[in-house]
């Protein structure tokens, strides 16, 4: 019994010290990992947003154009051309977009494009103004990865 007691007495402080060292290492490593994670995550997010801004702007320009893939005729929305966006995939291919999108027009309850967007990390909304049936209306396009 005595030996056991003596043994305990001689290693008690070392155990606590060692534990503290280990804990510190763990904590520091964790913090460092968190730091790098945070830094990398922010940069990655910004890149993704830039892509979305670019492609959102491009998409709105293409959609609000009088070309074959656009929805305008005579600076006004052409309902027939607009309805073609109900076939989302075909239009997306025509536009050559890599991102998913949908848009809606003021006073028109319909969302055109990928109408049920999944929960995604980033969605960019591009707001434009156009003319629909001689009314000046807003045009909102949502685009995501």
């Amino acid at each position, binding site marked *: 019994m005595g030996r056991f007691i003596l043994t305990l007495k001689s290693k008690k402080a070392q155990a606590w010290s060692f534990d503290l060292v*280990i*804990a510190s290492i*763990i*904590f520091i490593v964790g913090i460092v990992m968190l730091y790098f994670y945070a830094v990398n995550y922010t940069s990655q997010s910004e890149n993704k947003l830039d892509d979305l801004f670019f492609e959102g702007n491009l998409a709105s320009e293409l959609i609000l154009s009088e070309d074959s893939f656009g929805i305008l005729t005579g*600076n006004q929305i052409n309902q027939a051309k607009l309805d073609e966006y109900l076939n989302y995939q075909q239009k997306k291919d025509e536009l050559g977009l890599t991102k998913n999108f949908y848009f809606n027009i003021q006073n028109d309850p319909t969302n055109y494009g990928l109408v049920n967007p999944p929960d995604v990390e980033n969605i960019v909304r591009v707001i*434009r*103004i156009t003319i629909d049936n001689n009314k*000046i*209306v807003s045009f909102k396009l949502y685009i995501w990865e």
Partner: protein
Amino acid sequence: MGIKKIKLINGKRGYFFSLDAFLALVIIFGVILFIKPTVKHVDYEESIHEDLLLALSSVAIADLNNSYAETLRSSGAITNQNQSVLDQIGEFYANSDTRANTLADSILNELDLDKNIGIYFGDSEIAKIEIIPYASAETISTSRQIISGIQQGNATKGYSSRAFLFANKRVDYFYFGGYVGDGNISVIINGTVLGVNVEGVFSKNFDVYINNVFAGNHSPAANIPYKFSLADQLSKFVPGENIVEFRSTQENLYVAGGFIKVVYDSYDINEGKTKFFPGVEGLINLYDSFYVPSVVKKMDILLHYNSSYDIFMTIGNKTVYQGNSSGSETSVILNDSYLKSILDTSGGLGVIKYPNLHDKTVPVRIGLSNASYYLNQSSYVDIISVTDISGSMDEDKITDAKNANIQLIDAILNYSGNNVGLAAYSTWAKKNDFHTLSNDSTSLKNEVNSWNAQDYTCICCGILKAVSCFDKNIFLDNFNGQTSGSNPIGWTIVEGNGVIDITSSSLEGDRAVNISRLSSQNPSMNHYFPPQQDKITTEFLVRHNSGTGTIRMEVEGANDGYSSLQDYIVLKMYGGWIRNVNAQIVSYNLNTIYKIRVEVVPGASTYDLYVNDALVGDNLAVYATRNNVARVFFTTENSNINYAVDDVKVFLTDEICDVPQGNRNRVAVVMSDGQANRDCGLNPVPDYDLDGDTDFDPSDQAIEAACIAKQKNITVHAVGFGNTADEETLQNIASCGSGSYYFADVGGLVDLYTQIANDVIKASYYEQTITGEGFSTRLYPDSYIKLSYQSTLPYGLVVFTETDIFNNPESQGSFYIPEDSTPYNGKVVSYSGAKWTSNVELYNQSSSTWKSFFNLGSYGLNFTNLGDPYMTEIPKSMIKTGNNTVRVFVGVSSSNYTAGSIYNKVIYSVIKEFSAYSPISPSADGCKWNIEFEDGSTIIMSVPSNYSGPDQCHYQSGNMFDPDGSTDAIELAIFSLLRKLDLNSNGKIETKFSDNDLTLDTSEITGIPFSWDTEVQIRTWS
């Protein structure tokens, strides 16, 4: 047990911090993961300001789907349904109308746009939606657009006016040739005629007939272009073919150049490919020309004539026809192939060839070939040398003059049949300085050698002395045609307390002069003339109408200095007696016409008196002896009286020259070394020298004397001698006398007189006028040359313009082609009289040389066989924009020519788009314009023609419209157009509208935005 617990406890304690740290990290990661969003929304709205600007600009206000816009439309507030929403907002803004804000607000509010956005005009906010205040914005994006016609406080729309000249009438010219004669002359005018003006040099009085109906008589001055209008005779014209005839009751009328300007009822450029010749009934003697502007494709000639004698026709120097019709009417057609065969033949100098007919004035001659002896016969010369022997001619000059006259005598008398007369003059032309026409050279030379230089210079006295050699009449006045109730023309009148008026109660003809003494002062009238020293007759009609006073009639003489006039013969009528002074000669009755004639030899102390052609007083004593007769004088004496005088004649009782009969060439050579400073009583005369002096101006009277000489068929040449000679007057003398002007310095007069003598001798052979009796030939006015060539109708308005007459001895003049005009043609008019237009030149500014475009001498023939252009066309390629200067020479041969007439001018036309635009202006009402033309005339015209407002506008030198003070588009457009037409910017318009039947008109466009502008901004901010 206890030990195990201790171990257990010790072991837990050893992991406690590590576990704690681990848990802490887990918690931190957990929290991070928990708070990290699963979906991130980022708005992107970079272009909405641009989109809104585009949308507002794209939608018409009439179409805008907006509740407030609908309200505006239904309320009628929208005046221009087609303008954009942005323009409509701008219009409201410009008019400070708050509806600009309301409309913009409404549009923004109806936008589902939770963004900061605003509409601004310049610095003015029109409407905005702000989530955060604009003032605290960190970033602002702006789209801009300039909209014109918008400026706050100013109208947005205005008027623009276009002013233009237009012609709905056609102006065309029929040109006579250089010489058309000799006989009655006719011209065909085709179309519906609205106006006819004639200008030409006519050799005699003539009557005009239109379609064989009398249309007035005319008495043109000799050798001066005579102008008249047939405006009051238009009813005699019919649509279609009309014939205008110029008939003379005297024989052998000719027109030495001229034109008929005709205004037709439609505007159409008619190049006139068919050139009709004027008709001649008498002696066919036509000198003409034609001009073709491009290569001739086809040419046909019709000669419709009647002649027992051969007629010939030459084109250039080629005779294309010779034949006669044996006294019956015939038409000869010279067709194209025939003319080609004739004109393509080779030949000598200047041969006209068919392919080269274009771009040159080609002379054409039609004449009587078997009457050639009239042309080539030596017409003898009767020449009077009129020599200045005034005081300035002393020493060397008088010696030169004497030697020159002696040379002239020898040269002229070298040809038998010729005569020379001498008329030297100083203060007047005295009998002892005169020698009648003679071929006695010794007598003539003795006369020359007796001359002495002294006193003043009365050139007209010398010329009239020469005239009196051929015509006994000194002074005639029958008062006919003068205005009743006015003073008689040309007399010196002193009415005193009386009245001297023209009356229709004539003693012959249609007018006389009534002289009434009404109170103590006696009325008088007199007329003087060059002193006469040969037996002279004074004759007049007189009628004592009422009153007990005395009729006093005087024949007066001048003193030696021709400075005062004194009674020579005094006749009186009173108490029922015609008296020599107061001595009763023969009785008379009241209200009875008596013809009284007095004959006296100046210097004699007696005279003969005739009443009603009966000698009633033989060798009556004169009042006082004088050595000349120079004035007639009518007055009253004693008591009130009324009498009439008519048909006053003063003439030489006997011929002073023995003028041979027959075809003779009458010539006067007038020499002077100085200014004319004594007059000879010719009154009134035109202001020939344009010095403004018309009151007994010696220079004008000298020129008038030359004109009178020409009327007596005397050709007057003039010679300036020495550097003090009045060359201008002498040149005008030569011009009006249809002669040539020469100049010689001291020492050169002898040679010059030799040359003049030679010229005169040549001219007596070769001038254009022919005479003959028993000829009856006729060229009909439907004779023509028909030319087919490529012609292009010009675009724009062709405006004809005439320059003023050259009016200089060099016969040199200029015309101006504006920079913004295209020359269409230019024709140099040459009044060559009985000579030929021999050379016409254009000054080449780049080479500073004269370049000839017409040279009659190049045809290498005697001029009598060649045509003579009245109108010489300048090749279009030679006409430049800016100033073009031409000069004309006339002559009788290629080596004998002088400068052309002072009456020459240029008729030219330009093609121009005569229009001008106004700036955008608030109104377009018009104005009544007062416009001054270059010739000083003015016109008042309302523009537009129905303008009846009060505005008066002026385009006149010294009274100029101020464009800065006008807001009327029509006024500004007209002003701009007038400035274009004012080619030399002197406030006078060059293009006289009436000459081209032009008028001003305008068209307006309304609703034009003003040029001022405002920047529209759409701003977004965050």
